[in-house]
């Protein structure tokens, strides 16, 4: 091969390597792109972050009533008990509603949980606004501790007319192992004393539903 061709060929390589490196980076860039896409389109049924509610700007639409189911699950290996205070509510679009979710750590160790929300149908998910939600942060619970976690939400008035009911699911994951001990200690120091003391552990009447 001629010298000219050889040098030209070698000259092509850096450009191609740049493409390769760029595409490797792009794979990682897909993560934020995907998350953005999820928030914009409701892909994956995810709900957005904290929402700022201004009562005046969203008048309540009394003409529609939306049925909302709360579904709670603990993921495999997560020992906590987790349930909504009420299984669901009927709301009008634009109406600010607060509900509680009860979570209890029945084990004898401090654990950290993270609730992951999901909304069905997906086209409702970017009309489901949460001004306050326990899912925005992790929960640190002492042994036997039970807390009520508030969630305040409003369903947007622009919710498509075909959506008459929404299911909001929370899946609780055990993330204890991925959280640094110092973070756990800090959370325990900050939080109010447990609503239930440790000695509630062995009272059987309290423990019923963990198997169901």
């Amino acid at each position: 091969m001629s010298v000219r061709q050889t040098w030209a060929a070698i000259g092509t390589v850096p450009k191609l390597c740049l493409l390769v490196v760029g595409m490797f980076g792009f794979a990682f860039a897909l993560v934020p792109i995907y998350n953005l896409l999820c928030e914009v389109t409701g892909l994956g049924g995810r709900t957005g972050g904290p929402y700022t509610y201004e009562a005046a700007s969203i008048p309540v639409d009394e003409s529609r009533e939306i049925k909302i189911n709360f579904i709670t699950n603990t993921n495999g290996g997560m020992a906590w008990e987790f349930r909504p205070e009420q299984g669901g509510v009927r709301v009008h679009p634009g109406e600010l509603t607060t509900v509680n979710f009860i979570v209890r750590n029945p084990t004898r160790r401090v654990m950290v949980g993270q609730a992951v929300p999901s909304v069905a149908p997906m086209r409702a998910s970017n009309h489901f606004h949460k001004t306050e939600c326990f899912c925005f942060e992790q929960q640190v619970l002492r042994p036997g501790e039970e807390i009520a976690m508030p969630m305040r939400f409003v369903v947007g008035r622009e919710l498509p007319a075909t959506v008459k009911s929404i299911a909001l699911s929370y899946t609780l994951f055990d993330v204890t192992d991925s959280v640094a001990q110092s973070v756990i200690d800090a959370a325990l120091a900050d939080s109010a004393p447990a609503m239930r003391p440790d000695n509630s552990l062995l009272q059987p009447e309290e423990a019923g539903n963990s198997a169901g």
Partner: protein
Amino acid sequence: MSEVVISSHDDHHDHGPAKGISRWLFTTNHKDIGTLYLWFSFAMFLIGGVMALIIRTELFQPGLQFVQPEFFNQMTTNHGLIMVFGAIMPAFVGLANWLIPMQIGAPDMALPRMNNLSFWILPFAFSMMISTLFMEGGGPNFGWTFYAPLSTTYAPDSVTFFIFAVHLMGASSIMGSINVIATILNMRAPGMTLMKMPLFVWTWLITAYLLLAVMPVLAGAVTMMLFDIHFGTSFFSAAGGGDPVMFQHIFWFFGHPEVYIMILPAFGIVSAIIPTFARKPLFGYDSMVYAVASIAFLSFIVWAHHMFTVGMPLAGQLFFMYSTMLIAVPTGVKVFNWVATMWRGSMTFETPMLFAIAFVVLFTMGGFSGLMLSITPVDYQYHDTYFVVAHFHYVLVPGALFSIIAAVYYWLPKWCGNMYNETLGKIHFWLSFIGVNVTFFPQHFSGLAGMPRRIPDYALQFTDFNMISSVGAYIFGFSQLLFMYIVIEAIRANRPATSKVWDGAYGLEWTLPSPAPYHSFTHPPKVDDAVPAHS
């Protein structure tokens, strides 16, 4: 074909091949490396084929007879990975190595040392992957698509080796592609303009760009898996704010272009063979090039059609349905062009032509089932059933694989200087043709009747089709040993081929003697302006 041209590399002023094993270990010669790739891919094809036969043996009748479900899942996973990354892709790279320098009038590939490295990575990668089968807990068992969290939180320990093996395969492909692009862009003989290049070169140029674009994405995906498994990140775990569905999006962003990587060079091969045996120029060369380019482009915007059932907003489903359906247009153009090339030709039916015609017919059938799969509401019924298995085997076996076999028959006389045994070649074709159809055609029916894929045992109403399918698999599998015999026999035979080999052959490679000299074109050939190289 009476003219006999004796190979003249002895009096060549350049050095010939080194002797013994070091010739192969340290070779930087495009033909040697092409040969290594081809034999390696054939070995992988046999290993992957044995896995396929284990699968078909277990599925011969209902119940668990030969293997347990854990092992069955390892077989389906490794069969897929080995056939895709070990058999089909390296075979195309081997063909590219052999043919591209000869077809564009270059002495060798542009980057010969990297060429050596990109091949020798592969045996290590696949030894590592296959060795996982003997590790405690077994090898990868999560399907070749390795969806999280089955491949992360729930994976066997050997998944780390799997990840490294995929990294190595990716590195090899990337280096191979860089080499192909550098060669095609810089090493063409004077007068060989882009639009005069044979279609095999064109399709490989586009394929190489696809590979450079998506192999790094695959590398990214497995890197994220590695971090999730060992370093506590949660790209794909909902607990830490990740999303298992995102894995599928990233995987198929790689995966859909990947399936075109496995079919575009096949288009190039068939576009060389059909004109030769129809003794007529390829119909619509320009539209062929544009069709390949548009298929490559579309391949980046259709990935989620593999994921219609994960639950997407309606608008997303519709977008991916429409864009997928659109692929039928350029694909159709290619098929119509091949048919028009045959039309009013003067056809003979040597083995390469038989495989090429079977390619056109059976690949088109795979295309039809692909079109059916693109229709989202109907796809809900097809998704993850044997209908999908039938579909992608129709495009990959009588598609990609038949084109590779056709290419081997077509160019083998040029490579080794001898004609193969035509009678045996035809027997091989008919056994393969019958075997492939008996194996995969019934799978359309079992899929439509509701048989899910990747199951080690099935309900009784699927029995008949599975039995037929297993019989076909044995016919197809064992007839490939005949292929090996034919190739080895031809290499050792004394049936010298002419330099043109085929009556209707056209292209620079046929101006070289058979066997082709160790260094292809030490002096650039003159490309005649009057006759386009592709006709």
